């Protein structure tokens, strides 16, 4: 299980840079092979398989399954056949087999935007201004018509519980660039709507060491555990305490000079000390100038919560955090993009909460020159049917056969559309992109070959993409 690798001299010196005077000891270890025990720094940065296009990823997870035909996948034919029955439709495609209605046109207007002339639903007035940055995948398809298996599929590559998610694989493969912040951060809907179905398993490390799991930032209170010093103690008092600890641990280490874990742990206390101030600093949105806060929509009540998360995401990637995932929408049906009823109210509402913040993020990243190395991903766990789900205000049921994702920045072409669903938006038909393919593409952009990123468990080499996956090369810049 342990990497069983020796601490390299470079790592040793890096650690020694912690201001602890370990250099003296390092000289004892000049011969790298003489260091004992596994070097237990699972988060040390590791080189990618090939140069990465995206140093960081921000994944806007539109939880619940946004409807492709009401957002980015314009289907004039659907409007023509509004109200007609879809012949041969398998009523068990969605979740509710007893509420299958006829074909239903999008209640939203679509207009063309950008140089590329992309048709975009009226619910995204802000994001529509950025279509020339986006690569759309209209032919996504997945393996389950049920939320949590589909969420696991989208996050972990397998429609079952127990596998590491994309962020965990990436952290396992590349380590952490930031020494003071977690490598992989997850934020959930802060409006009391709960977590996505399957909760933490969506950002879990599965069978990978738990150090690779996503760090969940609590929406209220202390974002992560144990970040705040006991209140009866001052900075100086804690410093004095850590100085004594360092001194005692140093002399113990001197008796066991070859145990690199001991040195790593001595350093971990210094890192922890620095994290106490680094993490709050990264989250201090009040340090942002007013125009930036407005750009994200922090001043607008309807989207301020999501704006705060998007702005946090930018501050985190700026500070070396590799993966950030933000969930829009929570667990229960109508509390997410899961628009079984009232697609107008449901999608209209969630779009309004997220449109300006995500657009602000794209604009801000671009203005800082960060978009080139930051991959922004937008999408949920599946799509929705082009048919109505019968209700007083009709909605749409789950559809595993077609969904739309868009990617922007981080090595993808802007203003392109790849693959297509059929004329009604029911099933992906052209250049189909399976979830494994999407994952292969994301890893590729991060500099990793999805076939080489493996982890051996009980005799089997596991991959994020299982035994499949092709990089969608046509969208690469």
């Amino acid at each position, binding site marked *: *299980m342990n990497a069983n690798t020796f601490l390299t001299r470079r790592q040793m010196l890096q650690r020694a840079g912690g201001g602890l005077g370990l250099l003296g000891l390092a000289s004892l270890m000049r011969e790298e092979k003489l260091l004992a025990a596994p070097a237990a720094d699972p988060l040390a940065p590791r080189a990618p398989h090939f140069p990465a296009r995206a140093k960081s990823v921000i994944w806007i997870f539109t939880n619940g399954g946004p409807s492709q035909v009401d957002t980015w996948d314009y289907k004039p034919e659907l409007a023509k056949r509004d109200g007609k029955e879809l012949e041969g439709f398998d009523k068990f495609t969605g979740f509710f087999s007893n509420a299958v209605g006829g074909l239903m046109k999008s209640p939203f207007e679509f207009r063309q935007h950008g140089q590329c002339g992309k048709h975009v639903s009226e619910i995204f007035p802000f994001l529509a201004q950025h279509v020339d940055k986006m690569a759309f995948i209209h032919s996504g398809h997945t393996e389950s018509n049920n939320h949590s298996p589909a969420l696991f599929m989208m996050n972990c590559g397998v429609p079952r519980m127990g596998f590491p998610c994309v962020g965990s694989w990436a952290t396992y493969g590349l380590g952490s660039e930031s020494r*003071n912040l*977690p490598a992989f951060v997850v934020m959930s809907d802060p409006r009391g709507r709960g977590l996505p179905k399957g909760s933490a*398993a969506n950002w*879990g490390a599965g069978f990978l060491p*738990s150090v690779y799991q996503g760090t969940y930032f609590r929406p209220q209170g202390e974002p992560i555990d144990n970040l705040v010093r006991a209140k009866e103690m001052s900075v100086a*008092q804690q410093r004095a305490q850590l100085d004594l600890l360092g001194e005692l641990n140093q002399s113990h280490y001197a008796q066991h000079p070859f145990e690199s874990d001991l040195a790593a742990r001595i350093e971990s206390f210094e890192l*922890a000390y620095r994290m106490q101030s680094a993490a709050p600093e990264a989250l201090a949105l009040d340090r942002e100038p007013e125009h930036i806060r407005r750009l994200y929509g922090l001043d607008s009540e309807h989207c301020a919560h999501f704006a705060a998360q998007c702005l946090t995401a930018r501050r985190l990637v700026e500070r070396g955090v590799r993966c950030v995932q933000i969930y829009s929408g929570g667990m229960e049906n109508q509390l997410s993009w899961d628009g079984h009823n009232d697609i107008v109210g449901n999608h209209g509402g969630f779009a309004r909460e997220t449109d300006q913040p995500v657009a602000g993020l794209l604009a801000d990243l671009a203005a800082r020159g960060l978009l080139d190395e930051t991959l922004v991903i937008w999408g949920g766990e599946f799509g929705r049917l082009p048919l109505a789900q019968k209700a007083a205000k009709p909605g749409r049921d789950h559809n595993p056969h077609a969904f739309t994702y868009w990617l922007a920045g981080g090595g993808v072409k802007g203003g392109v559309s790849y693959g297509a669903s059929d004329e009604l938006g029911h099933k992906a038909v052209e250049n189909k992109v399976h979830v494994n393919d999407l994952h292969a593409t994301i890893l590729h952009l991060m500099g990793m070959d999805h076939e080489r990123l493996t982890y051996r468990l009980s*005799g089997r080499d596991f991959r994020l993409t299982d035994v499949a996956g092709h990089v969608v090369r046509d969208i690469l810049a």
Partner: protein
Amino acid sequence: MQRAARILAVSLGLWGVSIFAAPAPVPADHGERMTAGLELFQKSVGALLKENCLECHGASVKLKGDLDLATRESLLKGGAHGPVVVPFNAAESKLVQAIKHSGELQMPNKKPKLPADAIAQIAKWVDLGAPYAEPLVKGAVAKKDRSTVTEQDRQFWSFQPLKKTSPPAVKNKTWEQTPVDRFVLAGLEAKRLKPNAAADARTLVRRIYFDLIGLPPTPEEVEAFVKSAASNRQSAIETLVEKLLASEHYGERWGRHWLDLARFAESHGFEQDYDRPHAYHYRDFVIKALNADMPYDQFVRWQLAGDELAPDNPLALMATGFLGAGVFPTQLTEKEFESARYDELDDMVATTGTALLGMSVGCARCHDHKFDPIPSKDYYRLVATFATTIRSEIDVDLNPAAHRAALAKWDAEHAPLAGALLKFEREELPGRFAKWAASAPAVPEFDWLVLDGVAAKAKEEGVTFTRKDDGSLLVTGANPDQDSWTFTAPAVSGSITAVRLEALADASLKKKGPGRADNGNFSLSDFLVTAKSADGKGKAAPVKLVRPRATFEQNQTSLSVASSIDTNKTSGWAVDPQFGRNHAAVFEFERPVSFSNGTVLTFELEFSNNAKHTIGRPRLSVTTNAGGAEFAAASQLQSVVEPLVALRDAGSADKLTPKQRALVLASFKRTDADWRALNERVEKHLAAKPKPDTVLVQVSSEGFKPIKHHADGRGYPHFYPQTYVLKRGDSNQKQDPATQGFMQVLMRNHRDEQAWLATPPAGARTSSRRTGLANWITDTESGAGHLLARVIVNRLWQHHFGRGIVGTPSDFGFQGEKPANPELLDFLAGELIRNGWSLKAMHKLMLLSAAYQQESKFDPTKAKADPQNTLVWRHTPQRLEGEVIRDSLLAVGGLLDPTMFGKGTLDENSRRRSIYFMIKRSKLIPTMQLFDAPEPLVSQGARPATVIAPQALMFMNSAAARQAAANLAKRLSESAPTSAALVERGYQLTLGRAPTEKERTSAVKFIERQAASYGDAPDARTRAATDFCQVLFGLNEFVYIQ
């Protein structure tokens, strides 16, 4: 020479089988050529291929050009572009052309051309027919062969029977303490290595405590050991090991290791992650079994089939929790029913394979195993074992034998009592009844007819109504938040004008009632009455209730009696603060109700405007008086009055119908003092009938009601009786039906598979298939028992020595590591079996060894020869696991609550040992996760020991660390008058040693300065001491055990 030829011939039989399948013409002298070719292969060609070709073309997952040179069969099959060798014809063979660089394809790829001599030998070998003496990759078989298992496959080390090994000879004759040592020493001596010196007693006592019970020794325990070790070290160690193996904490420590393997958790996972509130019994089983030193084969057998093997033993039932501990979706669509069930079966098979046998059986779900000889059909034969096994929650009698005995005793006592009553009823009662009936007894006067014959039903489960003599019903059992009761009374004659509902006090109720709320209150949200004719004709019609009145009302608005008959469900009749006394409400009927054949009344009582606020002892009565009657007017039981009326109306007893006669007799006998006395003895004895001591347990069994599931409403069947072999693991691509069987590679001696299978007894609830699996898996002669033994002794070794003899403890297959000391492994596995599968005997054997007792000192020279310490030249230091770190903080802080067993908690402030945390998959305990506790999703055989900054934050800032430090500081301050004494005692408690002079000086200086920095605060010194104790917890020495 003769002998060598015969061996070659045998080899030919094995490896030359397919020569006739080769497309090219076979020369007449092929026999001689092949023999010569074999010699060449063994002399040079085999090594040449191995050295130059196998890296890319050697039975690995990623074969270049899909060409595999591992076996002759795979060589002849060729690669992606067809055959590369024409046997007996080097000139036509692409392989030879490639190594000669005569064409475009040049091999070895991107490496220098082979020497001319090597090329010539390979070419000659091809001309001789390209025979193989053995596969070039050990154990490799050609791809197409993976669906069958051959004797060759069984040659792989882990499938082989245990070798009878005896301790080898060694040069150093003085080192050995147990037989283990000669095996270890022989390994070291072969590499010219010397073991480290023995660890000092102080280091050793700490090591043994943490290894066996996961808690630090107290300073007194340390000193006692150090003292006794000074006189006789080995005997002191033996005494200590025996003491700790007998400690109840042993099961808590080693149970946690097992729970990792069992992917144990107490919730479903997936969408809603519902709790499995009765799953903790499995954890308790593991602890109890380990503490009792249950033989390991039985430990395994019970986890697979305890319900079949020992159905009367509660622990055996609890053990089956193993199979059902995996995840399962809480929400399913029709399309997912069957695939979810196959996933669940896969979890059982994969966990069984990995945890018990170190075999990744699960890999064969989609295809024949790529590396190990596990054909897909073997996998589905195993899956079929569990086809009908599901998760259920059943009442388990914790002590069935005691219950049976008590019941027999009770039965014997009961017979004479019941007999006496029966005798009286037969011989004495009829005469007395006739005499009484002839006396024309009078019908008493009354206002209220008490409906003592009502049939009562509660909407919620578990609520019990017990009739009392006065016609009231005592409510016991579950006290649900909200409930709705339906009472139906036997027919009443006459014109009914009002109903009285009483809520009576009772000594058994909280605050004596009359309600079941904690304060004795109740709140009747709604009271509805319907009436219909007793002849069953017509529908029940609601009766409008008017002029409600009550003995007391909590207020005149929302808690008034009137509010119990309004339409508002958030209001209702309540009686706070008049608890512990009887209350009554009377409701008049707007119009009197009467049917000629009698009236059947149904009463609905709804309790929904407050939680757990039902009535504790209700009684219903009706009256025919105009305008109703007073609350306390004269009452008579319906069961008393009606027979008297019947007798009066009939005129004499002979004119009663048999049914009427029975009722009248029943009523009469209650008035007879002798009958009452006899009956009371029977009733009293009945009330004392022994009840089983039951508890709800989650089991994995067959034929019980499945645990409730969201998709039950959609018709989820929970299991499919027939298992199929699936193509690519897809339940939509069924192939042949699969029947139960075992892994062929672990069946030996030509034993018929049937011999392990068990036949269920007639009428059995379960299929006995799991018993069959248990038989095979523990059969050390012909089944998988030898591997079972190897895997578990390796796990024990791994936890004691920091690394298994096989470094991949859950992979004993081709991909796993080979044993560093195979003789030792087989010796230990054999010892386990010879010792009746006693794990404690194994611990002792390992811990008493000199190998275990070495000091941990790192030696660069030795490390060069054996960097991973696989030969055990030192003791590998280990970082304590999260559970042990937390338990140690609690122990040293004097906060540890040693309560064992029972329901766990999610509360991190709990002071019980960490194994008693509830494991809820969506709310894993953060501190455990922080220190590498695995997610309980798949079986995990080893934990990493990472070092990350958030762990340091836990020591610096967590409430738990601060609290333990504060408590330790308090303990220290009480007994140590000076800072120096405090430091001294602190070191003893946390590290089991005195501080060095330098440590003492620094620590004292720190405490003084820190206290000064807290200034005038009255607790400045305590705070400084707390800060110091926290430093002690942060020491590497506290969490790394040397």
